[in-house]
């Protein structure tokens, strides 16, 4: 019974992908225009791109920036969010700042950042950093705020000092919420990664994609979309697995919706 369910659970994403590709194939054949290659063509181009050392290096460049931007953002945002959640003063200080940054699409800051930091890694990593930071700060903040006071009191009665309570009670208690923020952040990292490379075209997956677009190499365009999409799916699935391992003790709660930025 459960094993049958498991098989369905693992197969259904695969089936969804196949279904999507099938629809794509049919629509592309039916439209029959140059700017919309068939799924089959696009898929065939994927190994060509990944097999080309120059292209592959470009893609790895993107991933490196994404990993660095994401990691830095998480390392800074979690402590900041937790501090904001537990201290009205810290929260009062940072809240207006975050409120101002929040609605601005991070890619829109790209031109200014490029002016300061150039078109290299620094600008793009910074944009990814900004994109990831906000959801992680927000969720860490919410998580820390929701920590039951009596839990902290219990810790205090056992002799935990303020810092210990932060690290050993607030952090684990808020972890489910923090990881929800990180998961949203991961998707946003991918999005900002591509958009930043679209604006500062110099290297990266976005660079390949938009250059191919300019040169009307539509097979490559769609192959890149497949590659980036697959990267997103794999990262998200891997992260969700990690999250589940870390917080299997938590009450099951709402699946997250992807926040756009």
């Amino acid at each position, binding site marked *: 019974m459960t094993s049958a369910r498991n098989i369905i659970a693992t197969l259904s994403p695969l089936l969804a992908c196949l279904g999507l590709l099938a629809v794509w194939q049919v629509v592309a054949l039916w439209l029959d225009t140059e700017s919309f290659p068939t799924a089959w063509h696009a898929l065939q181009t994927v190994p060509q791109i990944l097999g080309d050392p120059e292209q592959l290096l470009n893609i790895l460049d993107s991933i490196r920036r994404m990993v660095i931007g994401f990691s830095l953002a998480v390392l800074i945002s979690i402590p900041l969010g937790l501090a904001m959640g537990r201290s009205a003063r810290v929260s009062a200080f940072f809240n207006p700042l975050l409120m101002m940054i929040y609605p601005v699409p991070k890619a829109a800051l790209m031109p200014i950042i490029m002016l300061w930091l150039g078109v290299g890694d620094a600008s793009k990593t910074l944009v990814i950093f900004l994109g990831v930071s906000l959801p992680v700060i927000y969720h860490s903040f919410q998580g820390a705020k929701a920590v*039951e006071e009596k839990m902290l*009191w*219990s810790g205090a*009665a*056992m*002799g935990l000092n303020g810092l210990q309570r932060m690290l050993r009670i607030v952090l*684990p*208690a808020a972890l489910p919420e923090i990881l929800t923020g990180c998961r949203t952040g991961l998707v946003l990292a991918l999005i900002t990664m591509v958009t930043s490379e679209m604006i500062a075209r110099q290297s990266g997956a976005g660079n390949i994609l938009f250059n191919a677009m300019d040169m009307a190499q539509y097979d490559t365009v769609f192959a890149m979309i497949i590659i980036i999409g697959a990267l997103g799916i794999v990262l998200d699935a891997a992260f969700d697995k990690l999250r589940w391992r870390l917080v299997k*003790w938590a009450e099951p709660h709402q699946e997250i919706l992807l926040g756009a930025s």
Partner: protein
Amino acid sequence: MRDKVRKLSSPSERRSTGGRMQVPLRPEIDTGTGATSDERARAMIEIDRVSKRFETSGRKSHLALADINLTVNDGAFVSILGPSGCGKSTLLYIVGGFVAPSEGVARMKGAAITGPGPDRGPVFQEFALFPWKTVLGNVMYGLRQQGVKRTEAEAQSLRLIEMVGLKGFEHFYPKELSGGMKQRVAIARTLAYRPSVLLMDEPFGALDAHTRTRLQNDLLNIWERDRKTVLFVTHSVEEAVFLSDKVVVMTRAPGRIKEIVDIDLSRPRVRAELLLDSRYQKYVVDIERMIDDGRDDAEHP
């Protein structure tokens, strides 16, 4: 003497109960001047003219506790009874050092309480277990914090878990337990680090009658063995009389101490004998009447 009683209850309250009070009344009032050095030495906790006012949303503030004076002797078992919202939990939090009084001072062994510490172990009404720790992890937490070695902490904790009847559930997470089971974990977690004062806020509230009786007996055994000082909040008059040396009856909000009743029943107490004991029955009836009187006062001022 008159001076001492003044703090205890308002004149109208005294009139309604004072006339036919047959239970021995010995209000323990320590105004800071009257106590002899002998009484001082035995006092574990002194609550000295404590009031607590909460700033609530809206402009009005709420007086939760008004002028509480109470001395709890070393090794005494003291229960607090009173209507919901009268400030019982708040009083425990003040002794625990989690909440600061608005006026007055609470002392532990003569020193003013300024914050929480492992000498006072709270069992909260809301359990407040650590959800990311298993039953064993929760119970071990305090011992590990005090530097007890893992194997030793584990052995002690397993014994406590067995005592509260949760053998077999050591590796369950709190979300996998029922309310009553969580409550028992909370009790074990606090007992584990051996505080000299237990602050128990309706610790048996969520338990079925059978488990409740069993844990009452276990608590009495532990208490008779270790002679911890216990401050115990409950809504059950029987439970209070059965367990306590002294029962504190509070008035409805703002919470004041209405009566302090000494329970003069020999120990060790055996439930089956006590239930048939007319003195026990009388305590229960008298205290129930005191609580009812409070209700009449509110309805016919």
